[in-house]
Each structure stands twice: as structure tokens, then as C-alpha cells.
């Protein structure tokens, strides 16, 4: 095959794959604007004949999607703020201090990454129950605060902060916290954005834990609400699509706006020879 033909074949392949990848998402958006029943009439058509917002109206007016959205938003925001803060401190400590047991502790944490979260869920639920935290924001938030992956990510990045800068700040009389706040954090800003983005999206999309903790309909996060909505409205295809759009869209926008940061995180976390 000559070069021109291979170029054409390769790019056609890439294009076809892009179409396949986007079709489910595009169809979700398109069907969410269709009239009730339209998406399941034959012959199937891809675009709405009479675009309507009625499903979005039904979701916000009758089905409390605004409340689920706020639940998801508050939980994801609080987890992101607190966890970025405490994991960045821990990552900094691992990267820039020598203290007895440092490497052992770090290796111990890393080995914890292979323990599936499901192992912790039953005792965690009982623990929260005894503290009266079942069915509360706090109950969903607490277990998500410390992240071994987050600590690892910050440690990898903070290692490149020059010791000389830290020493200089100390000679100027800066406290250790001041060194962290005014020297290390600003230099680590790119990876902090990355970690915050990862955490927000991960918490927003998390399903099993909020499903377990939130027992009352009013406290559902969006994914839990969608899964629950499916029970009553399974046949309302267009309505379910609108609900899916509302669940997916915020993180999709976040990703498209900040993808540079997101992609860097995967590279730093993934390639660690």
C-alpha cells in the first residue's frame, strides 16, 4: 500500500471509530428532545421531528431533578475542596520530608490500593449508622476524603519542587505550613487542578456508595436518582434520556473545559517506570 492510501485508510478508520463512540451520546441528546413515544416508533429516526423541552420540564417540575443536582453538586464540591487540601499536605510530606518510616508507610498505602472499596462498605455503613450519619451528606462525604491515589499524584509532582526554594523560605523564617502554603502549593497548582478535577468527576459519577447511604429519595445524588427513576419510568424513554443528559452534561462540560489538566493526571499517574 502506498503512503497516500494508508493515510486515507487510517483516517477513515479514526473517523468511523469517532462516529461509533459518539453515537450513543448523540442519540441520548437527540432522543431527550423527542415527543413521548417518538424514539420507539418505527421507522426509527435519529432526529426529533418536533423538538420539545417537555421532559426537561417534567424532570425539574415534577421529579425534583433540581434537588438531585444540588445534592450531587454539594457532595462533589465538598469532597473536592477538603480532599484536595488534605491529600496535597500528605503528598507534600511524603515528597519533601525525611522521617523515620516514610518509605514503609508509603509502600503500605500503595498496597492498600488493591483492596476493593466494597470490602469497607458493610462496616462503614454500620459505623455511620451508629453515628446517625446514614442518609446524610456527611455520610457520603467522609469515606471519600482521603485518597491514596491523590496522595500518590501530589507526591510525584511535589518531588520536582526544588529543595533550594524550600530552604530559602525557611532561612527567611517561614514556618513549615507557610512553606507548604506559599512555596509548594503555588508550584503544584497544575497538579492540584488535575486532582480536583479527578475528585469532582469521580464523586459526581460515584454510584454504589451513595446508593447505600442515601435511603431517602430527597437525598439521592443524580446517578442514584436516575437508577431509581428507571424503576417507575422505564417506558418513558425520552424522559430517561433527558435525565441522563442532565447527569452527564455537567462533567462533560468540565472535562472539555479542563481536559488538559485531566489528561496530565492520567499521564502522571499511569506512566511510572
Amino acid at each position, binding site marked *: 500500500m502506498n*503512503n497516500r492510501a*494508508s493515510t486515507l485508510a*487510517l*483516517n477513515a478508520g*479514526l473517523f468511523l*471509530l*469517532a462516529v461509533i*463512540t459518539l453515537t450513543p*451520546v448523540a*442519540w*441520548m441528546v437527540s432522543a431527550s428532545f423527542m415527543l413521548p413515544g417518538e*424514539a*420507539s416508533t418505527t421507522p*426509527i429516526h435519529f432526529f426529533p421531528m418536533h423538538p420539545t423541552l417537555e421532559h426537561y420540564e417534567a424532570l425539574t417540575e415534577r421529579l425534583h431533578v433540581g434537588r438531585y443536582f444540588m445534592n450531587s453538586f454539594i457532595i462533589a464540591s465538598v469532597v473536592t475542596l477538603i480532599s484536595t487540601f*488534605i491529600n496535597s*499536605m*500528605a503528598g507534600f*510530606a*511524603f515528597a519533601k*520530608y525525611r*522521617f523515620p518510616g*516514610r518509605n514503609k508507610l508509603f509502600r503500605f*498505602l500503595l498496597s*492498600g490500593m*488493591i*483492596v*476493593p*472499596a*466494597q*470490602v*469497607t*462498605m*458493610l*462496616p*462503614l455503613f*454500620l*459505623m455511620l449508622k451508629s453515628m446517625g450519619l446514614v442518609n446524610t451528606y456527611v455520610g457520603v462525604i*467522609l*469515606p471519600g476524603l*482521603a485518597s*491514596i491515589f491523590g*496522595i500518590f499524584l501530589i507526591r510525584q509532582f511535589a518531588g520536582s519542587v526544588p529543595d533550594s526554594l524550600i530552604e530559602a523560605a525557611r532561612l527567611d523564617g517561614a514556618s*513549615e505550613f507557610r512553606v507548604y502554603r506559599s512555596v509548594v502549593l503555588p508550584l503544584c497548582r497544575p497538579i492540584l487542578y488535575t486532582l480536583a478535577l479527578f475528585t469532582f*468527576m469521580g464523586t459526581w*459519577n460515584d*454510584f454504589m456508595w451513595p446508593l*447505600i447511604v442515601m435511603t431517602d429519595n430527597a437525598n439521592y445524588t443524580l*446517578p442514584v436518582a436516575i*437508577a431509581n427513576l428507571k424503576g417507575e419510568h422505564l417506558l418513558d*424513554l425520552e424522559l430517561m*434520556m433527558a435525565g*441522563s443528559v442532565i*447527569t452527564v452534561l455537567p462533567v*462533560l462540560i468540565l*472535562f472539555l473545559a479542563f*481536559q488538559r489538566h485531566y489528561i496530565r493526571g*492520567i499521564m502522571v499517574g*499511569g*506512566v511510572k*517506570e
Partner: protein
Amino acid sequence: MSSRVRKVRHDNHTAAAWLFLAPAMTAIAVFFIVPVLSALIMSLTDFDVYALGDLSVVRFMGFHNYVRIFETPLFWTALKNTFYFVLVGGPLSVAASLGTALMVNSKLARFKSFFRTVYFLPVVTSLVAVAVVWRYLYHPAHGLLNLFLSWFGVAPIDWLGNPAIAMPAIIVLAVWKNFGYNMLIFIAGLQNIPDDLYEAARIDGAGAWRQFIDITIPTLAPTTVFVVMITIIGYFQLFAEPYVMTEGGPMNATTSIVLMMYEQGFRWWNMGFAAALAFVLFVLILFFSIVQMLIQRRLQR
């Protein structure tokens, strides 16, 4: 004198380090390590719905729960299904990621960052939401997939209603949802291969295929092992797809270990039994992780 100064400073730094570590380590201890140990103890008891009200009825049962698990036919079904998902879905996902990474990274490819972004989009979507969407794509009468296949003369398929096809259907969804993530890791790995390696091979007269076999594959091997490991760990935790799409059916064909654990633990409150199930899952993941580590070590030599 100077050594005393250094000593004092050293102690100060140790104290500072521990202060920085304290919040995260406390959270990890309370919300991770304690629960893992509690789950281990719990798995050795008959903790059930009565114990939720009155802890004093809990009795120590030794390994009874584990024996019961192995005597439960549904466990073997769930184990088989989970292995099916991991051992078929895992390699398919990794292969899709690698193939796409090679295509995107090729010198001939245009609009690389556009394609990279598009392929990555499914990764950031909510699994529950896209599982709902795919449920409709798989609809036997009105689903887009059957419409597409009908253009090629394929008769309608009941994707999620047929016990033999339901798991493959879930695997297709999982590959679509996840391939973009590992693709990025592979692209990073490919970009780390120095160009002069290929240059040298070209001078030696190696064609594209030879270069791929002799340079790309071996240098990418550590990345591949890493990717396979995170994929396998993730795929063992199959839950939301069957929960949303099939509720474990039809005829338990998509019941996974985690779904079974969820139902036992949080629907029927057989928490001792469910904790034992969670540990069986953990042991499986541990086993695969050790195998991976051994391979990694051999590769490094």
C-alpha cells in the same frame, strides 16, 4: 554543637511531616483500615438483620460463611459471570485501547487531539446514565443497534433478554465506556519510545511490522502490564451495569460477585455473609495483582 542543631531540626521536620500527614492518615485509618479489619471479623460472624437492632445477638461462626458461600450455587454462577467479564472484557478493552492508541499516535493520523478527546468522552460520563442509554440501544424492537444490524440483513437480537448474549452486551458497553482511559496511558507510553530506536531499526532494514514487533511491543510491555492490572482490578468490581441494565438477569446470567454482595448485604442484611463475599473478591484481586507483580519483575530483568 552543629550536630545538635541538626538533630533539633531533624526532629522538627519529623513533627511537621506528621502534622501534614495527620488529616489524611486519620481519615484513611478510620474510614479504610478499621473498616477492612472490621469486615474481616464480620465475615466470621452471623451478623444479620436482627443484629442491626441488637448487637448482642451476633455470634462467632468461624469460617461458616465461607463454607456457605461455596455451597451456594448462585455464588458459582456469579463467580463464573465475573470471570467472564474480567477475562473476556478485560483483554478486549486493553486491545481496543492499544489499537486506538497506535492509530492516534501514527504519523499519518490527522486531527490527533480531536480524535483523542472524542474517544475519551465516554470515560467521563456517568456509568449509570450511559447504562440507561445502552439499555435502549439494545432494545430488541426499537433499539438503534438492531436497526443498524438490519441494514446488513441481521435478524433482531434480544441483547439483554438472552442469557447467552446479555454478558457480551455488557462487555461491549464496558469496552465503549473505558477504552479511552487506557488509550491515553498507551499514547504516553508510545511517546516515550525514542525515535532513534526506530531510526536504527530502519537503517538495519527492518520494515514497519518488524519495528512494531521488535521495538514497540517490548518497550510497551511494562505499560501493558500496568494497564492490564488496573483494568482487571476495576472489572472485578462489576456492579452498576448489571444493576441498571439487567438486575443480574436473565436467569442470573449477569449477576456479579459485587451485585450478589450488595443484595445479600444491603437488601437482605445478611452482612456477615456479604462481608465474606467481599473478602472472596479481595482474594481474587490479590491473586491477580501478585501474578502481575511477578510478571513486572521478570520484565524488569
